[in-house]
């Protein structure tokens, strides 16, 4: 297949169990290069585990993960690290290093890769912080001095500072008020567009999914049950997706109160 038609990330038959619990039960998904994919699903449906499998943080039990047509399981450690070097990640709670000032958090990857001196990193951090709407002076603060919204912005700055070509967003608007959520979504859109990156977001915030997604996929009980355009969410014709998008209690998805 030519590069133009090949998905940036391709998952086939991805399976992962934790003890008796089958979290991923054969995930098949194509993520188009330069597009923004939103993966929807309830709590415990396997969204985060899917992302962690792609990042190599969790080893899948079976299945194929391809990035740019390369099977990640067949790469050497160095090749795998090279793939990860091109991926940025915004964690749900920011996951900022509280022992380091904000500027060092933002340029952590560049410093780790020796691509920049510490002096230059301060200037670079100020530049990236401005891109996410924060004053350069924020760079000298500790993460514990920031509000939740500011921590998300710093997390976003850290994810984009090394100019990755794939960016993962784990619940980017969770815990934020609706206005701040919209602001973060706007920043995500701007950053992804500016970098020309492929974005994968996992969320259960439907407003956010429609704003930041080109494509959407719904995961339920460890399987992808629907894929399509994010703009169609709420009116997909798929009973599960529509129930989830409208937040209806009655429907094919029944919440398990006890596992």
């Amino acid at each position, binding site marked *: 297949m030519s590069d133009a038609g090949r998905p940036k990330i391709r998952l086939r038959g991805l399976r992962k169990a934790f003890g008796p619990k089958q979290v991923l039960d054969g995930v098949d998904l194509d993520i188009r290069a330069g597009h923004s994919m939103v993966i929807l699903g309830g709590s415990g449906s396997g969204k985060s585990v899917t992302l*962690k499998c792609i*990042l*190599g*943080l969790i080893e899948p039990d079976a299945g194929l993960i391809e990035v740019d047509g390369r099977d990640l399981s067949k790469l050497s450690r160095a090749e795998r*690290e090279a793939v*990860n*070097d091109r*991926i*940025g*990640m915004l*964690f*749900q*709670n920011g*996951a*900022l*290093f*509280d*022992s380091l000032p904000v500027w060092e958090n933002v340029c*952590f*990857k560049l410093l*780790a*890769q*020796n691509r920049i001196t510490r002096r230059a990193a301060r200037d670079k951090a100020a530049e990236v912080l401005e891109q996410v709407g924060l004053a350069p002076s924020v760079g000298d603060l500790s993460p514990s001095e920031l509000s939740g919204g500011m921590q998300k912005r710093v997390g976003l700055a*850290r994810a984009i500072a090394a100019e990755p070509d794939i960016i993962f967003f784990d619940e980017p608007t969770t815990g934020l008020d609706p206005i701040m959520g919209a602001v973060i979504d706007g920043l995500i859109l701007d950053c992804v567009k500016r970098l020309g990156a492929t974005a994968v977001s996992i969320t259960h915030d439907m407003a956010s999914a429609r704003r930041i997604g080109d494509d959407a996929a719904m995961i339920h009980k460890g399987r992808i049950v629907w894929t399509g355009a994010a703009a169609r969410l709420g009116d997909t014709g798929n009973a599960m997706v529509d129930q989830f998008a409208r937040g209806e209690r009655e429907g094919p998805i029944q919440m398990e109160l006890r596992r």
Partner: protein
Amino acid sequence: MDRILDPVAAIGRVAIGILRGTGAVALFATAAVLHLFRPPFHARLFLRAFAEIGWFSLPVVALTAVFTGMVLALQSYTGFARFNAEGAVANVVVLSITRELGPVLAGLMVAGRIGAAFAAEIGTMRVTDQIDALSTLSTNPMKYLVTPRLLAGTIAMPLLVVVADILGVMGGWLIGTQQLGFSSGAYLKATMDFLQVWDVISGLIKAAVFGFVVTLMGCWFGYTSGGGAQGVGRATTSAVVASSILILATDYVLTAVMFSR
């Protein structure tokens, strides 16, 4: 029949659990040590851990050593007076401090301070996804979090024990000269006459091992913690308890190896 075998199965499960845990810790330690020989090296993190272990533990180790030396002098004087052997007080103090009490008590104090601090810090990083974040930022978490701490612990502890040895002996000297009637010169001469280089060296070897054990336990329990705040609390307690027990156990083994004839 099953019921009869239940206790046996329980013992088997515990034994397998202990073996599995020991193996996992050994692999963890090996991986951390191997990172010492592969760049990049995080000198800044090593220095930070070194200051945390060596410099900031100094007051508590110093106080422990001084009081231990003072108590040793008092107790040994009381005991030896019954055999008219009061002159041996200086020898007992210096041998006890350098061979045993200096490294063991400093190790236990550092276990309380550093084992707990490392487990809490790394455990919090684990439950707040900071360790996963390191992996996504082109940084090996083991190399970044564990290796510099292990190296710092192994180097800083012997230096702490040198200070503890000196202050412990000075504590004995203080009591000996101010309360027990020894002359300063005679006490110090008795101390130096009976002290051999190996007494000090053996204590420093123990200290290096204890430093490794304490930092390893702090890092291991922090790195493998889970279950939110409660999990971090459990990791912290486990790190201190395991460090303390391992210090006493390895002290016996090292003493048996170094001083058995």
